[in-house]
């Protein structure tokens, strides 16, 4: 269990709130669709803060108009990876943005052991730091 006030990894837009229900997720998806974003589902068992590339659960759903489709895909992802971290990401293709506009976690392992801080003492009182996931020493697929 992590010692921060939430007890869990705090990445994404809504980590300090109670886990979103499917009905609540749907409202967020609708908001993104209204803005013209394309939704994508990503999962990982290596949630290191600088692990940028989680695995894609299929391509971003560019032509999808109905939030039900996203929730169906999410249900399928949860079924395949029940103990992984899963996040929804919305892509905005507007010129001058062309990046991610929304991102929030929608599935977590029951137990989140978190990360340790490795300190390497170097020149003077300087330190080199490394964030190391306690679960990441296990092979892929066996971490949570």
């Amino acid at each position, binding site marked *: 269990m*992590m010692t921060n006030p939430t007890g869990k990894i705090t990445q994404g837009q*809504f980590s300090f709130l109670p886990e979103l229900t499917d009905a609540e997720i749907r409202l967020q998806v609708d908001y993104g669709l209204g803005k013209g974003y394309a939704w994508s589902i990503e999962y990982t068992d290596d949630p290191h803060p600088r692990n940028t590339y989680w695995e894609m659960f299929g391509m971003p759903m560019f032509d999808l108009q109905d939030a039900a489709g996203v929730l169906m895909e999410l249900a399928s992802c949860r079924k395949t990876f029940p103990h992984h971290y899963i996040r929804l990401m919305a892509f905005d293709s507007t*010129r001058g943005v062309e990046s*991610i506009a929304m991102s929030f976690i929608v599935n977590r392992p029951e137990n989140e052991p978190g990360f340790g801080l490795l300190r390497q003492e170097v020149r003077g009182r*300087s330190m080199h730091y490394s*964030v190391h996931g306690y679960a990441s020493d296990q092979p892929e697929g066996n971490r949570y």
Partner: protein
Amino acid sequence: MNQPDKAFSTEVTDLTADARKRYTAGVLKYRQMGYWQPDYQPVETDTICLFRITPQEGVDPVEAAAAVAGESSTATWTVVWTDRLTACDSYRAKAYRVKEVPGTPGQYFAWVAYDIILFEEGSIANITASLIGNVFGFKPLKAIRLEDIRVPVALVKTFKGPPTGLVVERERLDKFGRPLLGATTKPKLGLSARNYGRVIYEGLKGGLDFMKDDENINSQPFMHWRDRFLYVMDAVNKASAVTGEVKGSFLNVTGATMEDIYERAEFAQELGSVVIMLDLVIGWPAIQSMANWARKHDMIVHMHRAGHSTYTRQKNHGVSFRVIAKWLRLAGVDHLHTGTAVGKLEGDPMTVQGYYNVCRDSYTQQDLPRGLFFDQDWADLKKVMPVASGGIHAGQMHQLIDLFGDDVILQFGGGTIGHPAGIQAGAVANRVALETIIKARNEGCDIKNEGPEILQKAAQSCTPLKQALETWKDVTFNYASTDTSDFATTPSVA
């Protein structure tokens, strides 16, 4: 507004057509020398400035406008024959329109166009030396203020702009779809480096994305800069580990000399900081140098606008902050303090929104109630992340998000560290308030009006938020602003 106004321009003959008369030794009126051209149509490559001028008693406003054009470009007080060695027609700035300021007798708006040859490419120092140089001390004017500027695309493209930009910053930090949260470490002065790092750790662990040095913390007897950087980076990295999130702290690298500034920035980078901080008082060339340094070192530059109110706040004299914001975007900063509208520091809400537009727009539209006099094409220049900081608290979250949207850093210094249950609790209160309001807005709630209820409801299951709302429930800074639009009444935010 788009037609040249000739109401003030009938009396004095422009002598530029007759070179012999124009260059006879002696003193001419500026408007006779070619600095007043009411028929001039600005071209795409012109820089256009809008000045607010207050002529001395008896000084004709058109002559005053022509003088501003003259003194900010080629003129001196007397005719010089050496003009005739040059293509002087193109070097003269041209005042081409003068209008009374609505409802403000004695003040006039003057539009002045500058040819692109007048400015060195990519140099804010050069632009400012012309536009706000000698002319601001010119005796026939009681006061003069540079209200707005249209920078032509051709000149915009000579600047590299923000080293990182708000889009890439979000990608680096892995934070999307919500404002970023910060806090300035308090007290501003006196903490030892070790105690200072404690505040950083508590704030970041509690849920903030950033902590921040204050503008006047550099390297004082109680806390040498190296000590601060070492302890702060220990706190930042530890907080990153216990939350699983990228965290940062704005290390103020401002120093007495460029050598000091480079040395401090390099140490910040060595320690793995994602961001450094500069105070506006270091000056334009130093800012542009550090922008270059930051590009080379993958660093975000946080700009604290320390000192700006000395020349931005009074409406009749100085430089509007919207102009400073434009220059800073060109010069290259990633974060810029642009006001809160609801907090303790000067700022009328619509005027402040105008500054935010200047930082974040791809194309800024003319918007007089927000103080924006010109369309400004930013030519795909990166965007600056505005920072709202100063006297704000969790109970205002709905107002802040309603006013400023997602792309802003909300900084609660006292509003985090002053929480009755401690710094972590203060951070939790702010993060929960933020996520609650974003979620509600996306769900379609009218956060402007329902915000207080939405926050109260969230507070039922979040004690730190409940305590924050209770502690600061009556705190507002509802004073009249000195710098407001001339074209709309100011809405209250009370």
